[in-house]
Structure formats: structure tokens, C-alpha cells
């Protein structure tokens, strides 16, 4: 195992730990937007972690996964914030 790989491992571990830290906010809230923020962190961090994993495992398709994750992250946020129509 060469130096680059070890450093990439270190980076992914570090990233995972920061994601866990951010997830504490999902646990303690207090409001729903607060919790959704930590989902957003997990989305962005997940994209980052997928890119690192793609390099480490040599599976370039994981970048496609990152692409889908990036696209779908917006959907969950929109689902949270939309209101149903009630003026008719």
C-alpha cells in the first residue's frame, strides 16, 4: 500500500467522522429545518465520500452514484418545504 492510498484512507475516515458529528444535529434538532440541515450535510459529504471511495476502490461508476445523490438531494429538501395548496 503506497502513501497516496494511506492518505486517501485517512481523508475518508476523517470525512466520515465529520459526517457523524453533523448527524448529532439530526438527533438533537430542535426544529425540522435543523434536522434537514444535517441531511444536507450528509448529502454533500456523501458525494465527497463516494468520490474518495471511487478513487480507492477503482470503481469509476461510484462517480455516477455521486451524480444521482447530488440530483436527488434537492428533491428531499423540496419535499420538506413545500406546502399543499389550500386556496381553492
Amino acid at each position, binding site marked *: 500500500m503506497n502513501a497516496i492510498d*494511506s492518505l486517501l484512507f485517512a481523508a475518508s475516515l476523517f470525512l466520515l467522522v465529520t459526517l457523524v458529528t453533523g448527524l448529532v444535529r*439530526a438527533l438533537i434538532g430542535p426544529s425540522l429545518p435543523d*434536522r434537514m440541515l444535517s441531511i444536507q450535510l450528509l448529502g454533500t459529504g*456523501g458525494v465527497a465520500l463516494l468520490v474518495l471511495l471511487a478513487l480507492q476502490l477503482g470503481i469509476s461508476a461510484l462517480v455516477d452514484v455521486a451524480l444521482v445523490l447530488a440530483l436527488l438531494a434537492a*428533491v428531499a429538501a423540496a419535499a420538506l418545504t*413545500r406546502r399543499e*395548496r389550500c386556496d381553492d
Partner: protein
Amino acid sequence: MQMTAWHLMDMLLALLLLGLAWGALSTRDLKRGVVLFIAFGLLLSLVWARLRAPDLALAEAAIGAGLSGALLLSALRDAPAMEESGEKSIIPKLGVGLLSLGLAGVLAWAWFVAISAGAGERLAGIVMVRLEESGVGNPVTAVLLNFRAYDTLLELAVLLAAALGIMSLGPARRPFAPPEALLASLIRWLVPLLILTAGYLLWVGAHAPGGAFQAGATLAAAGVVLRLAGRHRIGLPAGIRLRLLMAAGAGMFLLVGLALMLTGRPFLGYPPTQAGLLILLIETAAMLAIAATLVLAFTGGRPKTDVLANTAGKLEASTASGPVPVRPARAGGANNDCNPEQKAC
């Protein structure tokens, strides 16, 4: 060094998943539960990536993190059904604990047997040897649409059954309010990109991770976003064409299978030279059906303007008698967007 690094990451991920599963289910606050469950789905996608299952990571990213999240977040609005029932479970706590432990134990035993079986007996070897005859280069697609095509046919039938169930249970939720400027501009580029990505995933699925399921889920996300933005037209056709579209996946599968039987081959036994084309044909139909089903699932019921359902509703209204209450909104849903039980309407 490499091994320990992987071990640390695996331990962290496994513990995190356990913690999120526990946290999502042990809380009495449903919002917290749903958000933690979405986080669980996102993390699961990372686990699939780490375990070298990019096909699953794609599906989980689209479904687990995106569509399920949207589905559950809208379900949070149906507050009454989702409130704490206050009823005590009739099963004693000890019994529940024992049952759960029992399930975990049985699974652990099954897992141990699977792990310790000789490597030579695995199906993986057969798949890899015969991959060339399958017409596609991605082994997961080969298993899904060729070697175990029956499974996938039945899966599409399950999906169709679920869609029919949802449609027959009642009208769709009320549509969403018109979007603010920012959301309007978001969907202007997000929807085309989702459709484009769906096409890409469908095509690339033949030789790389991707395929009808991931593509269908991504395509469905386009419909969900349009719906969230308050659009009336979200890409779903109406009336009989909607039903045909939902049946397209299983239908195309059956058609191809039967046509092959006419040529003297077994049901779904593709000739190796045409296998690739036939699989693409089935996958395209399956993608459309999956997308239609998932969008319909998100709207929560049959479309308000659904001609067929409304005629059925009127029939129901004219024939119903006795204790079954038929509320006018269900029969005449087309001209009224509001559910009468919502106090505001």
C-alpha cells in the same frame, strides 16, 4: 495498514447504521424518526458503495435517500393517521424482545451457513462463465434480465399490484402550492437533468452499473419534483394510457417471452445474438412503468382528473347503499381539489 484502515471505516459505518436504525425507531417524535430514517438510507448507499455494489448504491441513492424521503415527508402531513395511537401492544415486551432476538439469531445462522459454504458452489461462478451469452456486460443486469428474468417479471407484477392498490384506495393528495421563483428556476434545470440521467443510466446499465430500476427511480424523481412545484402536468398520462403505462413493464416482459415461445425457444430464453436488444427493449418499458408507478405512489392515489376512476366513483355513488358512506368529493372529485375532511376547505 490498509486492512486496519478499512476495518476502522467498516466499524464506524456499521455502528452508525445500527445507531441510526435504533434512533429512527426509538423516538416518539415522528419528524425526528423520518429524518433519521432518511439519513439511514443515505448512509446505506455509502455502505453499498464500500461493499463494491455500485448498482445498489445507485438505486439506494435514488430511492432510499430521495424518493422514500419525499414519500415519508409528505406522509408526515397526514398527521391523524400517523399520530401515536396510545394503544399498548397486545404482545408483552418480553415476547417482542425474544422474537426480535430470534429473528436476529436465525439470520445470523443463515449468514454463517452462507459464509462458510464452499466457494465452488456459488452461483457467481456460473454467472461469470456465462456472462458472454447474456447479451449484456454488467453481471447484475445479466442476472436480473436474463438468468433470473422470472424474478424480475414477478417483481414488475408486484409493482403493478402496488400501483393498482394505491389507485383504488382513493384520490391523490391535494396538489402543492405554486412555486416561488427560486424553486421554479430549480426545476427548470433539474427536471431535464434528471430525465437525461435516467436515459444515461438505462443505456449504461448494459455494461456498467445502472439499469431499468435506477433509471426508473431517477425518472420518477423528475415527476416528483414537478409535482412538488405545484404543476398540474407531471408527465403522467391520463385514463387508459396511464394504466397501459403502468402495465408496460410486466406486459413487455410477457410479450417478449411469448414471442420467443412462438419461435420455438423457451419462455424468456433469448437467442444470444438478439439478447442485448431484447433486454434493452424490456428495460425501456420497465423503466417507464417503474417511473409511472413511483410518481403515482408519490401523488398518493388516482389522479383527480382521472376519467375512468370518476365514472367508477359515480357508479359507486349511485349503487352504494346502507352503512357505507360515500362522500360527494369522491364521486365528483374532478371539480374539487380539496378533501372535505380538511377543515380549511
